[in-house]
């Protein structure tokens, strides 16, 4: 008897140690696709605080911005999307979510119904999932498909898969260093692809695409599970260069058979309704950018608000954490968007936003009297008599001019913004030296530095020039 106790205690300690060491070796998937943070932060959500869960692949990470739903509809949402997340993993995550949350709606991005997931991506979805019968099922599933016992062991004990990284283990494996912020499962991207090759999908072919048997079985399991748990299920397909009517038809069929709403944002009609434009709303790697994410998520939000009885969470004490997150999110979106603005009126409006400190220095710009010139001066709240001087600078904070000077000779100013950040302005050289680094573009016009007080970072440096009296924004 004593021996059995000894043996079991040894094995238990051994497994704990192996697990602990394994955690150190699992790669930190902290890059722009934030796979690890998405999962770790999900487990940290307050219990039963979620209204809507979005699941899917990287399409969700870049396309579903949960905080938009909170901002505009008071809905608490989160997105679990890892790169090429398989349908099976999505299913596992839906099941996993109901252990700690009681969401009313699940939005499933159905791209992966038609694709395989390579091992590396499967790991992202599973390695950080807490061990449970749910995880065990998923592991067995993957190993069975590969007909490999070694695969089973490698998922059960990640140390056996990642031990070869021992040479690379450094401080980053012990200290969490995250390279992109996780906004409730959303990773902010502001790049605009400008890609005009995209053609919306039209209802011109009656054929269905083929779904592999296991995935078909899985999607039916998901449908069944959500029905049993009384969770509303919505299918959706993000704007995507790699999509076609055949696949649309296939999903449409399943949706109709099971009375499930399916939003395909590639269909011409829906695109028009949502005002989606591929060139403007996606980044260069065929994923939505912030503009597309806003439109898509809010459209879903509108639908959910109308069809599901979800209490408005805004203002409630238990959801104060969402307010804080939203504040940071809004601020970061503000930073993200301003760098894409080329329309002068829009840009001026953007410069006047809260949390921005804007420094302007005039650089070799002839004085003008055009309507546009005067409008700009006016909208920024500048004193035109000072602006007309050959040497001129202005500092604008939260849309208000807090410092401004115009002179015939050089103005050399050393001051602080955001209380502690040193700035040196030299109007003759048109130099804006911020914290020791030169930020001016030295371009004709007004050289502009935009700084965000809340996120404490330089947002961009640009210039506003006037060509034939017409304002031009440049970077």
């Amino acid at each position, binding site marked *: 008897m004593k021996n059995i106790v000894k043996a079991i205690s*040894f094995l238990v300690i051994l497994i704990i140690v192996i697990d602990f*060491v394994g955690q150190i*070796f699992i790669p930190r998937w902290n890059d722009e696709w934030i796979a690890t943070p998405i999962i770790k932060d999900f487990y940290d959500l307050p219990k039963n605080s979620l209204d809507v869960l979005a699941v899917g692949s990287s399409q969700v990470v870049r396309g579903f911005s949960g905080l938009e739903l909170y901002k505009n509809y008071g809905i608490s949402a989160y997105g679990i999307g890892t790169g090429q997340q398989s349908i099976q993993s999505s299913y596992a995550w839906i099941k996993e979510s109901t252990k700690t949350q009681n969401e009313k709606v699940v939005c499933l991005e159905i791209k992966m119904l038609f694709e395989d997931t390579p091992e590396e991506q499967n790991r992202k979805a599973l390695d950080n999932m807490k061990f449970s019968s749910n995880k065990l099922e998923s592991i067995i599933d993957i190993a069975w498909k590969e007909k490999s*016992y070694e695969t089973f*062991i490698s998922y059960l004990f990640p*140390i*056996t*898969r990642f031990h*070869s990284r021992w*040479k690379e283990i450094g401080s980053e494996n012990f200290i969490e260093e995250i390279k992109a912020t996780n906004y409730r499962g959303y990773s902010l991207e502001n790049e605009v692809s400008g890609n005009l090759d995209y053609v919306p999908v039209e209802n011109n072919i009656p054929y269905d695409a083929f779904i592999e048997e296991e995935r078909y079985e899985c999607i039916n399991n998901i449908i069944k599970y959500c029905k049993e748990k009384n969770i509303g299920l919505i299918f959706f397909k993000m704007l995507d260069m790699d999509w076609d009517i055949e696949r649309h038809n296939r999903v449409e069929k399943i949706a109709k058979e099971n009375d499930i709403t399916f939003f395909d944002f590639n269909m011409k009609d829906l695109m028009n309704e949502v005002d989606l434009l591929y060139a403007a709303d996606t980044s260069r790697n065929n994923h939505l950018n912030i503009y597309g994410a806003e439109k898509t998520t809010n459209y879903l939000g509108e639908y959910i608000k109308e069809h599901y009885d979800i209490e408005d969470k805004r203002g409630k004490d238990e959801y104060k954490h969402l307010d804080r997150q939203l504040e940071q999110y809004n601020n970061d979106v503000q930073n993200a968007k301003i760098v894409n603005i080329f329309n002068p009126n829009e840009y001026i409006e953007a410069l006047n936003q809260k949390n921005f400190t804007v420094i302007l220095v005039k650089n070799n710009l002839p004085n003008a009297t055009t309507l546009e010139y005067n409008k700009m001066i006016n909208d920024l709240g500048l004193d035109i008599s000072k602006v007309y001087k050959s040497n001129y600078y202005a500092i604008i904070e939260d849309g208000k001019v807090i410092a401004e000077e115009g002179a015939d000779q050089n103005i050399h100013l050393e001051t602080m913004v955001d209380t502690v950040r040193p700035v040196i302005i030299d109007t003759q050289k048109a130099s804006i030296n911020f914290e020791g680094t030169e930020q001016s573009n030295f371009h004709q016009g007004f050289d502009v530095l935009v700084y965000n007080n809340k996120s404490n970072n330089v947002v961009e440096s640009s210039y506003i020039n006037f060509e034939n009296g017409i304002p031009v924004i440049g970077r």
Partner: protein
Amino acid sequence: MILTSSIYLTFLVILLFLYYIFPKKMQWLLLLLFSFIFIAFSTSDVKAYLYILYTVLVSYVGSNIIGDAKNEKQKKRIQSITVILLFIQLVFLKYLNFVGSSSINFINLFGVNLSWTNLSIIAPIGVTFYTLIAIGYVIDVGRGVSKPQLNILKHALYVLYFPQLTSGPFTRYMDMEKTLYSKHKFEFKNVCFGFQRIIWGFFKKLVISERMAIMVNTVFDNYSEFPGIYIVIATIAFAIQLYTDFSGCMDIVIGSSETLGVTLPENFDTPYFSKSISEYWRRWHITLGTWFKDYFFYPILKSNIFQNLQSKLKKVFGKKWGKKLTTYCGMFILWFTVGLWHGGATKYIIGSGLLHWFYIVSGEVLEPVFNKIVKILHINKENFLFKFWQIVRTFILVCIGDLFFRSTSTADAINMIKSLGVNNYTEIFKGALLNLGLDFKDLAIAISGILLLLTISLLKQKYKIREEIKEKNIGYRYAIWISLIVFVLIFGYYGTGYDAASFIYQNF
């Protein structure tokens, strides 16, 4: 089934679970079943089962006919026929190409112009091992040392017992029949010690052997680029690789059998601490040595041919030298065969055979010369430094044989020895060790492993390691074994990103 794999460990654990739950008289049947499962996992070739079946049937039928035989003459005749039948299969499966091409070459000496095309025959795992075990059994029955096993299933178990199946050790039926078929009560110590030994085997193989293999392969597969010091490094690395690989395999195999309560004989006894080549062969692949001694060498020496030869030589060279020369002749045949057993190629015949014959014979012949030198230089044979010199000298001699063993052919081995003359030996100080495929970190781990192995080997001379650890307190014990397991898990050469080589002796 690769022994250093999670599949094998799971296989063993499941077996153990069933083994100690099942009624004890069924335990041997369970072993037989699992031996077949082991074979099934090790080969996908249907023919392999036929070859195995052949060995089992021939040895079973032969031994039982011997048992029923009326007189000695009949016994000897059946014994010979059975052994030849078993032997023929071995030659067919392992040596056909060697025999064929050698014969053709011989015939061609007479002006004929034939050529031999190599046939591709896949030898089933362990055929050189279990065939010899079967032959040994038949001979023992013929000699009256053992009674034939009447139960064909029990007989099959002896021949195919999975721990010894792929690489030995060579067991004796008279020893095995005492424990293989008996009832085994669950002994916690056996299971513990067995697994501890298995972990140690994993350590040797995955941490040390695989890393040595990288350096060895870099040089041996491309030796023209790596002369001088690199040949030295790679040969020593190979000596280490071969030892950790083979003895590690033995640790796993003997440890596995230990968990089942079946004792297997040891095959290694820190061989590189040997002070002479003769001693080396009492400590390296021990059961091979005893097998060849009992079933091959002694019959040869005791045969009439050799006794007559001895009388003749005694008349010419005197009593002492008559005896010695006869023995040397016998040994020549022995070592030729031992070399040949390792493989059908001259490099094996030399490297694991005749070279050692040469060492032993010249050692004996030159013994008076050595003794004189020792006397003149007033060397104390008990002195530690002298013993150390003997160990180093023996190791060097063994390494030369290993060079032949590992090289692609005898011609290549000779070229490699020639290239020892290239004077780049100072490169050892300029990081030569890092030019052979292992970076600094890997090399550091390998060397740490080797140092640990060396320490344990030295301690083994005095202490029984597992017993000693068992006496310590529980925290200490858990720490040691868990650390070792985790060390192997982290630094072992296995899994994705590594090409795990099968045990070197597995295809023998």
